[in-house]
């Protein structure tokens, strides 16, 4: 943040309270609430919004410290604890759902406070360091990242400060490469679908003669153009007996499935085949 800039919009700005050092219990519509009103109904929403302004107990503590120009390295733990507890009490009073973290911090503050009352032995031993040390470390660490988050927010970003260009490219030039497929993948897919079918339906995909299926498709291709096709044209005698039988079965299957229709104008006249209902 290079610019002096406006203050953080998220942090409430008590207008009057800062002067005399008193910290308001809450800020409601910008006005500090210095003592719990007894006869006044406070819409819980107002406090919820206030609570939302803080990203947790560390943030609230930082606010209390910064507001009074206290040194983070030398927090007057008594004062801060009292103020912090006032907030917590107020929130509890109003039955706001208070995140557990706030209560944990309250306990920590009280513990530090009590340890501060005990005389400290003259030693540089880690264990006997200032009881506030851990809290100070956490506050400083958190403050760094709070600042980093604000810095991040001021970086130019796409869609706000940057707009990538996008020149049109006529799609005729774009060729999509289709994925490659292994036969094994298809077979595995088929096995899966059949397993499912076995599970969910009573009918099984029975063993099929694929040559029959293939021939059915071929027959349909032959009659595709519409109109009548001579029955005989569906057979290729060079395929031999087996081929002719398969073709015949294919035609019967298609007739049964109401796809093909056989037409004979009179007895012994040539049989013709056409697609049923084919309008082409």
């Amino acid at each position, binding site marked *: 943040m290079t610019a002096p800039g406006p203050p953080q919009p998220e942090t409430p700005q008590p207008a009057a309270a800062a002067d005399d050092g008193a910290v308001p219990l809450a800020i409601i519509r910008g006005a500090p609430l210095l003592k719990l009103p007894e006869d006044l109904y406070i819409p819980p929403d107002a406090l919820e919004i206030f609570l939302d302004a803080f990203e947790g107990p560390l943030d609230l503590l930082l606010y209390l410290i910064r507001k009074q120009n206290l040194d983070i390295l030398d927090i007057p733990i008594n004062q801060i604890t009292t103020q912090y507890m006032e907030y917590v009490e107020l929130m509890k009073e109003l039955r706001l759902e208070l995140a557990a973290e706030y209560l944990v911090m309250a306990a920590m503050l009280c513990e530090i406070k009590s340890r501060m009352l005990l005389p400290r032995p003259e030693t540089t031993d880690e264990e006997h360091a200032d009881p506030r040390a851990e809290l100070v470390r956490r506050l400083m660490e958190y403050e760094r990242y709070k600042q980093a988050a604000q810095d991040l927010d001021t970086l130019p970003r796409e869609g706000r400060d940057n707009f990538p260009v996008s020149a049109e490219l006529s799609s005729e030039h774009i060729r999509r490469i289709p994925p490659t497929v292994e036969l094994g993948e298809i077979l595995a897919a088929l096995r899966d*679908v059949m397993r499912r079918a076995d599970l969910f339906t009573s009918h099984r995909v029975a063993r099929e003669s694929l040559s029959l299926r293939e021939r059915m498709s071929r027959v349909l291709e032959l009659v595709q153009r519409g109109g009548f096709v001579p029955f005989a044209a569906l057979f290729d005698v060079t395929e031999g007996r087996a081929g002719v039988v398969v073709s015949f079965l294919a035609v019967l299957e298609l007739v049964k499935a109401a796809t093909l229709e056989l037409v004979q104008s009179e007895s012994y006249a040539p049989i013709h085949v056409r697609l049923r209902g084919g309008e082409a």
Partner: protein
Amino acid sequence: MSEEQAQSDTGEAATDGAEVTPLNALSLATPPVQQVVEGALMAAGGPLTLDQILGLYPEDRRPPREEIRAAIDALTADYADRGIELVEVAGGWRIQVRRAVAPWVARLWEEKPARYSRALLETLALIAYRQPITRGEIEDIRGVTVSTQIVKTLTEREWVRVVGHRDVPGRPALYATTRRFLDYFGLRSLNDLPPLAELRDPAFFDEQLRAAGEARPDDTDHGDPR
């Protein structure tokens, strides 16, 4: 409320809250019309009309139409030797990749394709084994609907095509596999596909995989050469 200010180093507060624009930014020196026109056409992602471009300016600072027109003409001339061109289309003016360059640029999208979905493979398998088959029949077996996209993809790839219609209400299309399908998978005919019964045998797939592994030892990781 004050979010725009926070991001702006000018720190200048928006005075009237009516405008939707980051006014503090707009109150800076107005950039040349040609730059605004170019920036807008570049970012729009589609054609812009003259009115749309004019609409970028607050009313009291709107340049005359002719100035916008002149800027468009100037840009058109500037692009004469570039990889892009400014053209007028039905919806206004648009910047596009120059035709001579387009085939090269198009290669950007020729990345390695995604894989086909399970649903597509199942549909293809059912068409291969049960042809000619209607979409409804495929859905009956799969237990889920078959998307139009899947059918379209298979048809475009020319692996599947419509060979007729079943003469029932709605006249559903009958799908079958094509010659190209057989060629792609190196099959002479559908009879080369393993019978269904074999597929039920777990051992079959192990073998299949082993065979595939031997046949194409180095096919698994053909990274993009780029």
